[in-house]
């Protein structure tokens, strides 16, 4: 099919490995996302808390800087770097990540469904599972960059500055950071893709994502007050995630009780999270088809 010949010729060159082909979907999605300047700006802004936390850890280990800034504390050190610090930082980053995915997630699949490009994609050697994994990789990469990597960097910075076996005695925290991040990536990623697949209109899909996290608490409170129970929290995904994270970061029960996040048991919280993920997968399975079938 050389241009100068203007005749068709078959392709006889090499091909890319099949197992990595889903990454083409991710790569093109990234191209699309970072074409937008506001998106790129917001992505960069997501690293501001990381810089602040980095500075906090540094200051907390530098007596001279503390002296220079006049930070001499009586009683408990407000700059203590412990499980609360990492839980708080991870929580803050997770919500920034959530906002970022609310922005970009809905267009991941909706763009392919809006003008029926999905049959073209699925007519290639790409399965539906690979398609979902390819799109999920985008969410996972963004959230890993915003949540997981910065928190781990801070963790190892703290370990380096603290020394004296801090790393070994707190290694469980690294595990918690990784597992908590993976759970958040799975939850947010699947909900973003499912809403994107069900609502072709991007704004509506973003609104649905926000509704799941912000209308849920209202619904939970209404159910709790009406039925005089705590089981209404099963409608509040954010609450269930908080319960699990607090458990992972070994926050004492009294503190959780004081913060009113002990009203749902840990197994129930896991069931809520798994339930939302399963529902999202079910919706994706129903929606992501090369051809709609009218059953008679």
């Amino acid at each position, binding site marked *: 099919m050389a241009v100068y010949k*203007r005749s*068709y010729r078959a392709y006889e060159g090499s*091909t890319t490995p099949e197992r990595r082909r889903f990454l083409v979907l991710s790569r093109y999605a990234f191209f699309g996302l970072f074409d937008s300047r506001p998106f790129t700006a917001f992505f960069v802004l997501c690293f501001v808390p990381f810089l602040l936390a980095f500075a906090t850890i540094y200051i907390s280990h530098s007596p001279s800087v503390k002296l220079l800034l006049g930070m001499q504390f009586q009683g408990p050190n407000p700059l203590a770097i412990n499980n609360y610090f990492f839980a708080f930082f991870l929580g803050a980053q997770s919500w920034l990540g959530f906002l970022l995915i609310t922005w970009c997630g809905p267009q991941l699949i909706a763009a392919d469904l809006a*003008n*029926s490009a999905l049959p073209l994609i699925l007519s290639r*050697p790409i399965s539906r599972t690979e398609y979902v994994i390819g799109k999920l990789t985008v969410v996972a990469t963004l959230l890993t960059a915003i949540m997981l990597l910065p928190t781990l960097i801070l963790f190892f910075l703290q370990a380096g500055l603290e020394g004296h076996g801090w790393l070994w005695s707190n290694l469980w925290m690294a595990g918690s950071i990784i597992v908590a991040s993976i759970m958040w990536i799975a939850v947010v990623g699947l909900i973003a893709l499912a809403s994107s697949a069900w609502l072709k209109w991007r704004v509506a899909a973003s609104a649905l994502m926000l509704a799941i996290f912000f209308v849920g608490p209202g619904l939970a409170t209404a159910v709790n007050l009406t039925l005089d129970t705590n089981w209404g929290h099963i409608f509040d995904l954010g609450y269930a995630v908080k319960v699990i994270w607090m458990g992972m970061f070994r926050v004492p029960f009294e503190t959780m009780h004081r913060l009113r996040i002990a009203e749902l048991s840990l197994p129930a919280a896991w069931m809520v999270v798994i339930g939302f993920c399963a529902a999202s997968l079910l919706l994706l399975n129903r929606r992501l088809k090369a*051809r709609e079938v009218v059953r008679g």
Partner: protein
Amino acid sequence: MGDAALDFMNAVIQLDGLSVRFGERTVLKQLTGALHGRCIGLLGPNGSGKSTLLNTLLGFFPPAQGGARIFGKDIRTHSRELRALIGYMPESDAFISNMSGVRFVRYMAELSGLPPRHALERAHEALFYVGLGEVRYRKVGTYSLGMKQLVKLAQAIAHGPRLIFLDEPTNGLDPPARNRMIQVIREIKDASDIRVIISSHLLRDVDECCDEVIILRNGHIAGICNIEEERRTNRKFLELETHGEEQGFADAVQQLGCECALFGKGRMKVVLPESIEVRELYRLAATRDLQIRRMNYRRDSLEDIFLKAMEGVGARNGSL
């Protein structure tokens, strides 16, 4: 190995009792046959199951019964492998509106397995080839309907498939755009070893491009016909109107080795063997002082073939 087995092995597509069901409704019913043509037309009225057959061959719908093979490979067990060999142009709109033409075609080529650099090169070539070279950097969403059809064709050929499925390729095109599309399809068909399957309800499209046709009616095969062979046969079947002494002329024609039948008033039908050219008839007529006032090739058009199939002729044995 028997002839039938060899015939099936050499087929582009073999259908072996293929049935497809959507819920309680059976859309394709026990399709059996072998298709060998370079360009195969899939004809049938709306709702006859043409697109369903293409989608089933692509692996979008699972067969409820039976199966099919493409280039000898089972569509159930080699679905992924086959999809790498196929280019697909769907009937309805299918594009990503905020991508430029070249990026869209490159994306699709990369999904088919081409490395990025080759995909980009082939995307440019494919767009030039279908006539969209000048607008390849424009977003696909801004293309006209005809351009969208052509970009669908470009993405179907960019990765250099061995088989192309074109589902209603001329839908919604104005006459010049339709002619361009037909010309491109014919060029693709003639240029290389590629095989093309065109699903259409427009007889003219199929007639101009295809050498074999499968006609579907209500999910059944109403007929499979080798148009090329039909045309070759028709080229030797003549209808004449003469003025002069017809009996003597008919005898002379028969002595030449042709079959000849008289219908009175100078009308006759002649079947020429392969070795005899039409000018021999003129020479004979001249020697006998007979005027040939009209000579027609019998033309059993695709429309006739289609209508026969729709009436049920050939439905029993699957061939016309």
